[in-house]
């Protein structure tokens, strides 16, 4: 009898423990596979990178009534560059050393963690990864910190790369099952880029994949920084990631050849880090054109047959559509002015024109160094088959001379002019179905699309706009006071659809009155 009682008590205790765990803000890895609409569990929203929501409460018909629900003010002068996570009613986002947990209903702060003062480059921070009750944050000085989601306390802190060598980190880690995937940045030194898989419980390294040969290998490149969060196909069990430019950056004499795997889209096995295939977006790049823009996964149709595809609107001005099983090119085309390639080779890769490499007296190049596309997320809308990108047509002059050496930047480049244009690319043909000019100067924000046919983005002047995905018409806007340097997210909570955007140091949430009724 006593044994039964003890067993019962034990069983009850276990049950209540697990109940309280279910009520806690936890994210099981399986939830990232099929995100519920009341969540945004990973940087891109889901593993496909489409940044497309099935929510339809906000429609082209009623978006004109969209209004401010609440704001969260960080009181920081640096801008928010992160996409928040939303899990179990709590928003988690970052701003340089700051990690915030905010009530997604009220916009009130739950906790705020500050990473200690450090000497890394403070250029930005894109957000967090989450696994069960733990968050993962990459600091400016290339540490990976795991926090308890409940209260922001530190579980562990591991070094990803040595910032004194010139590495820094900015991206949102990607969680796949029991792997936390992180990448690095660092263009001012001749460093190897890599992707690392870390154990979410212990912080121990599981594997590294290197984008370039060991530094010091003769006639070989370094670089291939893995700046931005990749995407994942769970059926193929393939991790897709973009790599950055080779180093030295603007001069290629010390690194002849295609400089694999810099400026590439690579497919890795996430359990082992083994390379399955690689596609070079810019063989032998000399213009700093990272290929780290989101490798968006599209389940599409090619010549009437279903195909598993991957599409990237790349920094260098090219729109690539690949077969994501084999890495073979399906389509390569430009999505704005480019003048640096002789053509496209049999692999669908651009052939760089040697006459457009930087010279002592300068070469006029389109696009500029910040590229036709950059960190701002594109979005793919499966209903219209449109790939929406905030492009930045631009012209620049690039210089390099022997005195600039073969280390780090090794040259100088100057942007002359650019403008912001939102484009809707038909993924099957590469043709631009519609485009909207937003004005001269800087670039626009990232894009998020929804099933009801809306595309949310920001213009270079701080206006948040809702466009009609099918024709690009502006249906609603609000001036937010500072150009958006992030990509929007959306979720529903308590029967209400929220769109979250940032501008300056402020997080804005937008809803319809009366849940849209």
């Amino acid at each position, binding site marked *: 009898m006593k044994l039964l009682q003890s067993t019962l008590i034990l069983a009850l205790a276990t049950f209540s423990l697990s109940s309280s765990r279910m009520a806690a803000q936890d994210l099981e890895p399986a939830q990232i596979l099929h995100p519920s609409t009341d969540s945004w569990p990973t940087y891109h929203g889901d593993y496909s990178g489409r940044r497309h929501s099935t929510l339809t409460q906000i429609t082209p018909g009623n978006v004109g009534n969209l209004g401010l629900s609440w704001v969260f003010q960080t009181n920081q002068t640096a801008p928010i560059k992160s996409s928040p996570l939303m899990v179990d009613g709590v928003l988690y986002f970052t701003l340089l050393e700051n990690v915030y947990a905010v009530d997604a209903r009220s916009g009130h702060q739950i906790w705020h963690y500050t990473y200690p003062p450090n*000497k890394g480059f403070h250029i930005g921070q894109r957000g967090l990864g989450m696994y069960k009750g733990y968050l993962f944050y990459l600091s400016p000085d290339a540490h990976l910190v795991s926090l308890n989601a409940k209260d922001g306390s530190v579980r562990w802190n591991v070094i990803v790369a040595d910032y004194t060598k010139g590495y820094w980190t900015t991206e949102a880690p990607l969680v796949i099952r029991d792997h936390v995937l992180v990448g690095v940045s660092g263009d001012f030194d001749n460093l190897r880029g890599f992707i690392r898989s870390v154990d979410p419980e212990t912080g121990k390294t599981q594997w590294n994949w290197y984008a370039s040969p060991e530094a010091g290998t003769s006639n070989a490149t370094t670089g291939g920084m893995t700046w931005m969060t990749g995407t994942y196909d769970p059926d193929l069990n393939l991790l897709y990631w973009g790599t950055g430019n080779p180093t030295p950056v603007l001069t290629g004499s010390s690194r002849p050849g295609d400089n694999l795997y810099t400026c590439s889209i690579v497919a890795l096995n996430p359990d082992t880090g083994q390379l399955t295939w690689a596609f070079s977006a810019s063989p032998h790049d000399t213009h700093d054109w990272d290929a780290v823009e989101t490798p968006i996964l599209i389940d599409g149709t090619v010549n009437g047959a279903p195909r598993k595809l991957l599409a990237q609107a790349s920094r260098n001005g090219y729109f690539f559509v690949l077969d994501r099983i084999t890495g073979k090119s399906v389509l390569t085309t430009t999505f704005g002015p480019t003048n640096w390639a002789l053509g496209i080779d049999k692999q669908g890769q651009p052939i760089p024109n040697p006459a457009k490499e930087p010279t002592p007296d300068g070469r006029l190049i389109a696009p500029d160094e910040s590229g036709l596309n950059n960190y701002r997320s594109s979005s793919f809308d499966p209903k219209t088959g449109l790939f929406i990108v905030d492009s930045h047509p631009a012209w620049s002059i690039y210089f390099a001379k022997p*005195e*600039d050496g073969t280390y780090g930047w090794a040259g100088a480049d100057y942007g002359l002019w650019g403008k912001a244009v939102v484009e809707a690319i038909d993924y099957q043909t590469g043709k631009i179905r519609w485009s909207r000019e937003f004005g001269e100067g800087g670039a626009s924000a990232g894009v998020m699309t929804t099933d009801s046919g809306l595309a949310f983005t920001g213009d270079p002047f701080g206006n948040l706009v809702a466009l009609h995905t099918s024709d690009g018409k502006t249906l609603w806007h609000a001036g937010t006071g500072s150009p958006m340097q992030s990509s929007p997210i959306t979720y529903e909570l308590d029967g209400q659809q929220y769109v979250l955007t940032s501008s300056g140091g402020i997080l804005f949430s937008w809803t319809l009155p009366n849940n849209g009724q």
Partner: protein
Amino acid sequence: MSKGTISAVLLTAIVVALHYAQKPVHAAAQPQQTSANAPAAASVIDSGGALFYTNCAFCHGRDAAGGETGPDLTRSKLVSEDKGGDNISVVVRNGRPDKGMPAFNLSDAELNSLQAFLHNRMLIASTQKGGRRGVDVSDLQTGNKDAGMRYFQGAGGCAKCHSPTGDLAGIATRYQGLRLEQRMLYPGRARATVTVTTASGQTISGTLAYRDEFTIAMRDANETYRSWPMDKVKVSINDPIQAHVDLFPKYTDDDIHNLMAYLQTLR
């Protein structure tokens, strides 16, 4: 010559070439950007350097000589004319939003260390012989001035708006080197003019002050700022710089270097 001698000569040549590759030829003399500030204490410079590294180095380079997207501050007119941070503080505190530079909320002490660091970098850069990542006037002398004049008067279309004895007289005295080439390709400060016609038929003209999809603004003939919602007025804009933008896809690199050679004769 015997094989051995040839090899020796070749080897010597290679060694000499390598030697000169690492010790580059001193760049031709150009107007030095000097710094009219008394040197600061080493500790202040170091503090400024640490601040610069974490906040500025990504864009402006660790040595302030240019990085991703940001200009070379060691050749900056604003920095060379700065006295004790008077110019620099304004730019750092306000940013340059139109150029993508954010604002930084730094204390007076922090700004002081930053300006000390920048002046020190400028001093070091001006005495450096090699390893610079900038563009010297001597780098931009590869064009043919006669071809440049033909392009100016012909295919370039420059003569439609510009005259070598009129608006461009003395241009090469006012600007040299990279700055001249940048302005030649895109003279960013020229203002567009705009005419707004209201619903009642009134027309107002002025220089363009602001434009986005929703708002148009100008400084009118009295320099008064005026704005209207875009959807309530008809707008026509005359942007004289548009012709420069239209040339971008048309230039060859030779055209640009030849034009530079020609403009540099207009002193």
